C-alpha cells in the first residue's frame, strides 16, 4: 500500500480543481473546434470566498477577426463556481466548536504554559459532544447522499479525535497508566460489534437452548463478543447454551466452566497495585490455558463442532494471536483483543509495536482513509496522521494541530512540514468559513487566535474586504480590528466608511471617520464643501454637522466653521461685542481658509 513519504511534506492546497459547466459551453469532444472559433474562458476570482466567476470570452475583439463568427446563447452566461464551501447544515457545529476553540486559547493565555491536562480533557470532551450531536442531527435529517456523506465524515472525525484524546491526553494524565480499558471503550463506541440486533435475532429465533446451540450464527456471535471483551454477555450466552441436549457432555461442561471463567475475568481498580492485578491476571489466564489444553486433548480424540467453537472462544480469551486474527474482521478488533487478553496493563508506548504486528496482517490498498489515519496515530506517525486528518476534513486537521500544539507534540510535524502546520490548517479552515456569509466573525477568530505574523497579515487583508452594508456591520468589523489590534486595517475601514458616508451626504459622520485616521486632507475637503454650500445658499445649516465632530477634531477647518457659526449666532442674538471677538479670533488665529 502506498504510504505518504515522510521525507518532506509539502502541504499543498488543491493545485487543480475541475468543474463541469451546465449548460455546457461546447458539445462534448469538440473543444478544439470551439477554441478555434475565437473562444476561450476568462474569469474573476471572488476576493473573499472560494468562488470564481467564469465566462466564455473572445480571444480577439470583433474588429480583429478575419472571418465572421457567430456568438451563441451559451457564450453569454457567467458561471459562478465555488469549492470548499461551508454548508448551512454545519452552522450549529461550527459555532459550538468555535466557542470551545476560543476557550482553549483563553485558557492557554491565562496559564502561559501548556494547558493543564484536566482542562484539555474537558475541552476535548466538548468537541466530541459536538461531533456526536451533529451525527444525531444528521441521522434525523431526510436521507440523501449529502447527509450520508456528512454522517460518515463526522463519525470518522469522532473516531479519530477520540483515539487521539486517549493516546495523548487521557493516558498521559497520570490517572491511569494503562491504555487498554480506554482503547476498548473507544473501539466498542466507535466501531460497535457485534451488532446488538444480531444477538436479539439469534435469541429471538431460538426458543430453547437446543435451538440456540444449533443456530449456525450463535458461535461466531459468541466469538465476536469475546473478541470485543463483552465477557458478561459471553457468560450469559454460554449459560443459555450449556443445558442444550444436543451438546456433548464435554461441550456442555466446558461451556459452563468458560461462563464462570468469563465472569471471573479480573478488572483493574484504582485501589489495587499493578503487581496485585498482574498476579490475579496470570492466575486467570493460566486457568484458560489449562482449559484450552483439556479441550484440545478431547478434540484430538473426537470431532465435536460445538467443542471446537468453544475452544476458539477460549483461545481468543487466553490471548492466542492466531485465533484472535482468525476471528477478528478488522485490525482494530485484533489490536483490541491482543491488548485486552495479552497485555491488559499495556501503556501507550506499547501501541506502536503491537499495532505494527497487527497492521502487517491487514494493511493493503483497500485500507480506507479512516484506517490509514488511525493506523498513523497508533504508530505515532504524527506528520502522516495530520495530513490524513486534512483529507478527512479541514475542521479535523485544524483542531487536531491546535490540540497537538497545546500538548506539545507538534514539533515532530514541524521538522518535516514545509509550512507551520497549525497556522496552515487554521488559516485554511478560516478561509473555508469565509465562504459562508454568516461565519465571517468565526473565520476572523480562527485567523486571530492563530497568533502568527502570517495569520495576522491574512486577517488584515480579509477584514478590509468585508462589505460594510450597514452601520452595525461596520461597527462589528471595527470591533474585530480593535480586538486583534489590526491598526492598519482599522484605518482602511475608517477611510472606506468616511468615503461612503461622504458620498451619501452624511458629512458629520464622514468627518468623524477621517478624523480617526488623521486624514486632514479629507476633513479639509468636506469642510470646504460645507463652506461652499453655505456660500451658495446663504443659509448656515452646517451647525449640527460640526457639533457632532467638534469634540474629536482639532482640525483648523472644523474650528473655523465652528467659530464662524458661533459668530453668526452671536451677531443674530445681538451680542455684537462677543461676535467681534470671535471674528477677530478667526483673523488672528489664521484658521480661515484662503478662499473664505
Amino acid at each position, binding site marked *: 500500500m502506498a504510504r505518504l513519504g515522510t521525507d518532506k511534506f509539502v502541504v499543498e492546497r488543491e493545485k487543480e*480543481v*475541475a*468543474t*463541469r*459547466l*451546465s*449548460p455546457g459551453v461546447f458539445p462534448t469532444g469538440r473543444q478544439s473546434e470551439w477554441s478555434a472559433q*475565437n*473562444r476561450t474562458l*476568462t474569469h*474573476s*476570482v*471572488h*476576493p*473573499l*470566498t472560494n*468562488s*470564481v*466567476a467564469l*465566462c*466564455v*470570452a*473572445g480571444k480577439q*475583439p*470583433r*474588429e*480583429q477577426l478575419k472571418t465572421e463568427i457567430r*456568438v451563441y*446563447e451559451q*457564450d*453569454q*452566461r*457567467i*458561471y*459562478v*463556481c*465555488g*469549492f470548499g*464551501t461551508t454548508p448551512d447544515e454545519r452552522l450549529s457545529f461550527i459555532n459550538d466548536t468555535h466557542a470551545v476553540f476560543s476557550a482553549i486559547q483563553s485558557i492557554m493565555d491565562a496559564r502561559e504554559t501548556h494547558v493543564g491536562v484536566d482542562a484539555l480533557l474537558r475541552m476535548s470532551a466538548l468537541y466530541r459532544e459536538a461531533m456526536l450531536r451533529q451525527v444525531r442531527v444528521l441521522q434525523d435529517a431526510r436521507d440523501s447522499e449529502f447527509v450520508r456523506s456528512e454522517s460518515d465524515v463526522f463519525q470518522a472525525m469522532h473516531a479519530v479525535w477520540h483515539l487521539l484524546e486517549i493516546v495523548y491526553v487521557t493516558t498521559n494524565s497520570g490517572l491511569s497508566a494503562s491504555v487498554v480499558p480506554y482503547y476498548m471503550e473507544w473501539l466498542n463506541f466507535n466501531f460497535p460489534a457485534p451488532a446488538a440486533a444480531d444477538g436479539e435475532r439469534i435469541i429471538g429465533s431460538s426458543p430453547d437452548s437446543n435451538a440456540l446451540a444449533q443456530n449456525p450464527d450463535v458461535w461466531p456471535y459468541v466469538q465476536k463478543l469475546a473478541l470485543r471483551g463483552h465477557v458478561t454477555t459471553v457468560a450469559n450466552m454460554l449459560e443459555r447454551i450449556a443445558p442444550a441436549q444436543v451438546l456433548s457432555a464435554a461441550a456442555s461442561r466446558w461451556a459452563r466452566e468458560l461462563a464462570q471463567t468469563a465472569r471471573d475475568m479480573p478488572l483493574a481498580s484504582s485501589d489495587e497495585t499493578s503487581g496485585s492485578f498482574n498476579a490475579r491476571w496470570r492466575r486467570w489466564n493460566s486457568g484458560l490455558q489449562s482449559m484450552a489444553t483439556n479441550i484440545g486433548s478431547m478434540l484430538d480424540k473426537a470431532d465435536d463442532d460445538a467443542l471446537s467453537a468453544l475452544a476458539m472462544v477460549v483461545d481468543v480469551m487466553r490471548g492466542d494471536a492466531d485465533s484472535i486474527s482468525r476471528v477478528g474482521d478488522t485490525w482494530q478488533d485484533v489490536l483490541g483483543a491482543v491488548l485486552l487478553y495479552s497485555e491488559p496493563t499495556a501503556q501507550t508506548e506499547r501501541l506502536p509495536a503491537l499495532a505494527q504486528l497487527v497492521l502487517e496482517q491487514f494493511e493493503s490498498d483497500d485500507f480506507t482513509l479512516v484506517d490509514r489515519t488511525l493506523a498513523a496515530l497508533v504508530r505515532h506517525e504524527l506528520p502522516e496522521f495530520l495530513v490524513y486528518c486534512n483529507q478527512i476534513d479541514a475542521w479535523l486537521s485544524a483542531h487536531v494541530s491546535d490540540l497537538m500544539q497545546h500538548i506539545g507534540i507538534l514539533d515532530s510535524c514541524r521538522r518535516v512540514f514545509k509550512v507551520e502546520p497549525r497556522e496552515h490548517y487554521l488559516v485554511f479552515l478560516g478561509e473555508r468559513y469565509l465562504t459562508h*456569509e454568516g461565519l465571517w466573525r468565526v473565520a476572523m477568530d480562527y485567523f486571530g487566535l492563530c497568533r502568527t*505574523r*502570517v495569520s*495576522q*497579515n*491574512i486577517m488584515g*487583508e480579509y477584514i478590509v*474586504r*468585508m*462589505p460594510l*452594508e450597514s452601520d452595525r456591520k461596520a461597527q462589528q468589523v471595527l470591533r474585530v480590528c480593535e480586538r486583534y489590534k489590526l491598526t*492598519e486595517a482599522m484605518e*482602511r475601514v475608517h*477611510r*472606506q466608511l468616511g*468615503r*461612503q458616508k461622504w*458620498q*451619501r451626504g452624511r458629512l458629520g459622520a464622514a468627518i468623524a471617520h477621517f478624523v480617526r485616521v488623521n486624514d486632514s486632507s479629507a476633513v479639509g*475637503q468636506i469642510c470646504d*464643501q460645507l463652506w461652499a454650500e453655505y456660500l451658495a445658499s446663504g443659509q448656515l445649516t452646517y451647525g449640527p454637522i460640526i457639533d457632532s465632530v467638534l469634540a474629536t477634531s482639532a482640525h483648523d477647518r472644523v474650528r473655523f466653521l465652528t467659530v464662524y457659526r458661533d459668530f453668526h449666532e452671536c451677531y443674530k442674538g445681538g451680542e455684537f461685542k462677543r461676535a467681534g471677538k470671535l471674528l477677530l479670533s478667526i483673523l488672528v488665529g489664521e484658521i480661515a481658509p484662503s478662499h473664505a
Partner: protein
Amino acid sequence: MDQDQSIPVNHDDFIHDIAYNFYGSRLATCGSDRCIKIWDWNRQTGLWILNESIGAHDSSIVRLSWAHPEFGQVLASCSLDCTVRIWVEQETNMKNSSMRWRGLMPLGDSKAAVHSIAFAPEYSSLSIATGSSDGKVRLYSPTDPVRLSNWTVNCMIDFVPGGATDADGPLCVSWCKSRFSSPHMLVVGGSKHKNVKIYQLLSNVFVELLELAQYDSHVLDIDWAPTMGRSYHLIATACADGHIRIYKFWSDPSLAKTHLSDSLFV
C-alpha cells in the same frame, strides 16, 4: 468545483473581461459590443441584478478595473478605440436609468489600442496605470480628487523605446499590492521585445529595477500576487507559448534576486 449559479449577461457580442469589485458584491463585464454591464449581488434573493448597461466606447472593450472603494464606486475600462474611460457611480440616480454611472472625459493620450489597465493600490492616491500597444505605460490621476475630474498623465514608462504598434502585441501591467515591502512597484510585460520588467515609482518617476524575463512569444497577461505575509513576492506571467510562469522576487536589496518558481503548461 460546484457550479452555484449561471447568469445570462446577454452582451451582443464576445465578452472579453469580467471583474469582481473589491468586496465581491459587484460584477462588471465588457465585450466586443462596446458595452459594459454592471451586476449587483442581492443578498436576500441570492441573485445578480443588472445595475446598468453602459454604451462605453467606440470599439471593443478589452479590460476593466475597479478602484478601491475608499475612492467611491469607480470603474475603468480600456478599448481598441485607444482610450481609457473612468466611470463613477451616481448613487442618487436610479439603476438602469443610463444615468447611474457618469463617464468622465476619455483618457486619449495613447496612439494605439489600450489592452491593460490597473488602479494603483489604495495606499497611493487614486491613480491608474494603462498599458498601450504604442509601447507606453501611462500613469493617470485626477487633479480634482473630490470630483475625480481632470485626469492627467503624471508619469510614463517608455517600455518600448522608439514606440510600438498594435501588431507588436499588447502590454500588460500589474501593481504590487503590498504597502510595506516594495511599495509603488509595477510589473509590465509584453509588446515587441516580449519581456517583463519591474519598475518602482519614486518621486513621480518610474525607475526600472530589473528585467524579470524575456520570452520567445507574446506576453498575454501578468499578475502580482498579494503578499499575505510572505517574505517574497510572486509574479505570474501568461504567454502565447501556452505557459504560465510564476516567479519569486525578493525586493530587499540584500536579497534582491528572482527565480522561476514554477511553470505550468496549460
